[in-house]
């Protein structure tokens, strides 16, 4: 049979942003997938060179618009490392809590869009979206904003947590834990869902390492690596948390890793809220002039919801000389040609859904 070339995107209902996939199909079987990125290129890295240090977080946040706080934190952590600023004790806990809340919100959306992609139009999506909103309510309480927070300051946070935050968060976490189990039973008992998950889009652990994929995609292929565990930051090493690893490397593993991670995040949030010390978590107020950096080059590794992100910062006084971002979404997207080879055309979107990419981060 002859090979047909199909152009999926840049405008397509399930491309998670503006991405173009050139798909070669032999009948219904995919021969080759070539992702074309760059439609959302804003030049964030270059832009960062023209801004003062604390003017940059609003830009880095917009890289991953589903989990903005994670990117905010990754960048601020890089600046803190360059300036040799120690984060105060309470802020470490607060950041751990907020980052895990952000992870839960992001994974919930990931599950919803995945179900959309494999053809359950909008029921699961709207349910997870509602639960995500409840998590965002918490983040709004803590930061005053629902989407773009800009709440990290050098050495701490922009404000204290509200007094009843811990109680709200505890209740919400109980609710989310219950809902995640419900979602698991809802979708995993559905044979149509499992047919499109099990054994589809397999990525072996050798290939995963060779392709350099990150985050849940890497752990789903049986590679036990999580930046929170292997280069711990903040309070992660205190909570005896284990990276969630699945061995099969298929769509189901990638989906399941995210579900397990949500439950683990719930546990971490609860533990961190319990162990939260007294005191202030305020950081340095944003001034025009920031302290001069003590380290010229730093690189910080953070486990974002979508994988490990590296912030490489060459620091000049007041401004970055160079900011380079290793985006987890970029490497995950680049692996799609390898993963989708041999799959059915309809499964391409299931695979894209389990990779859970955010184009703002891929194109930067």
């Amino acid at each position, binding site marked *: 049979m002859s090979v047909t070339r199909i152009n999926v995107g840049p405008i397509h209902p399930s491309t998670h942003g503006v991405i173009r996939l050139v798909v070669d199909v032999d009948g219904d079987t995919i021969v080759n997938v070539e992702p074309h990125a760059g439609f959302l290129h804003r030049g964030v890295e270059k832009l960062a060179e023209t801004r003062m240090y604390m003017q940059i977080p609003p830009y880095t946040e917009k890289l991953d618009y589903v989990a903005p706080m994670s990117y905010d934190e990754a960048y601020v952590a890089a600046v803190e490392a360059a300036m040799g600023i120690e984060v105060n004790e309470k802020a470490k806990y607060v950041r751990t809590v907020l980052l895990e809340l952000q992870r839960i919100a992001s994974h919930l959306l990931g599950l919803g869009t995945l179900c*959309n992609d494999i*053809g359950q139009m909008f*029921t699961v999506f709207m349910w997870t979206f509602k639960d995500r909103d409840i998590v965002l309510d918490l983040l709004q309480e803590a930061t005053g904003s629902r989407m773009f927070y800009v709440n990290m300051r050098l050495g701490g946070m922009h404000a204290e947590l509200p007094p009843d935050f811990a109680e709200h968060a505890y209740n919400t976490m109980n609710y989310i834990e219950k809902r995640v189990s419900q979602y698991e039973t809802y979708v995993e008992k559905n044979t149509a869902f499992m047919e499109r998950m099990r054994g589809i889009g397999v990525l072996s652990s050798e290939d995963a390492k060779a392709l350099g994929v990150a985050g849940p995609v890497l752990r789903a292929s049986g590679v036990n690596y999580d930046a929170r565990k292997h280069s711990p930051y903040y309070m992660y090493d205190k909570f005896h948390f284990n990276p969630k690893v699945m061995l099969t490397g298929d769509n189901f593993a990638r989906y399941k890793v995210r579900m397990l991670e949500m439950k683990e995040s719930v546990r971490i949030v609860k533990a961190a809220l319990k162990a939260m010390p007294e005191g202030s978590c305020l950081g340095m107020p944003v001034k025009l002039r920031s302290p001069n950096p003590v380290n010229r080059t730093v690189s910080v590794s953070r486990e974002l919801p979508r994988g490990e992100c590296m912030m490489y910062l060459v620091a000049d006084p007041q401004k970055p000389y160079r900011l380079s971002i290793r985006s987890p979404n970029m490497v995950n997207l680049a692996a799609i040609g390898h993963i989708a080879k041999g799959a*059915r055309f309809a499964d391409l979107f299931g695979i894209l859904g389990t990779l859970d990419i955010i184009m703002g981060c891929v194109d930067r």
Partner: protein
Amino acid sequence: MLQDLLSVNLSIPFWLSSPSPLYEFIAIVLYVIIVSIIFSVFGYVMGWLERKLIARAQYRHGPTYVGMWGIFQNMADLIKLLSKRDVIPQRADRVLFAVSLPLLLALSIFVILLLPYSPGLQATSLGFGMLIVFTIIAFLPLLLFTAGFSSGNKFSGISAQRSVLILLSYEIPTLLVIASVGLMANGYNLQSIVSGQHIYYALLMPIGFIVFFIAMLAEFERPPFDLREADSELIAGWLTDVSAPYYALALFLDYARMFLGSVLIAILFLGGWSGPAILPPLFWLILKAFIIAIFVIMVRATAFRMRADRVLRFGWAWLIPLALINLVITYLVFVG
């Protein structure tokens, strides 16, 4: 016919007495008008209800602005679609592209007009009425195929291939179930099928009922078998290049087919218009069709779409054997 229909005693003038040609003519015109009104109202209400019910299943409100509870939202959409420009893509086969959708709709409405709606409201009383109905229904996927290929879009092309796949998987079980219904009713006359159902065939042949329901879902492109239209994969499948007025036709077609499928299931398996005599027979038929349509909508709210190869496997590995078993049981128990 007029008297049955309106359930009142009209004082019919002599020139309208039944053998006169004028009577025949008026009866035919009235029949077409009344059935068109029934199915348009049914389709319209289902269109609105589908939006509302799906919205409820998804923690949304659905349409709220146009009219009370958004009841006129579909009308507003229709006006919007009709006021837009229709674009026929350059690479499309213009004639086929322009003809296949209206033809699909015309055929669906033709089948709708062939169905009996109550003892007084029916077009024909042919002995093989059901066979004609299903012969025409079998043409619909072929027209979908031409509609898909004529647009010249690759997504529509894939959709057209899937259309054939569905045809392969669901026509045979449908025909087998029809055969068993024919066995039960001693013929293919739709009226005698209804009058023969002292106990609903859905209770006598539960397997056949389920197979037929699934086959109708596939036949009329309802989820989880909406792989011809698969939004998340094929953009809109065979409708990808279809623009404004044609798209309105396509939406109309959707509900015409939904009406057709629901009424067919009601007639073949749920006793058609039979019901307590306090209300006219037409009411019972529409009520049954309505309940089936709501069930179809709820399936859409919960089911994951099936993959094309899986649909074929499902059709041949489950539906055809089940339909055969149903046929054999029907023969042994009720006929032999």
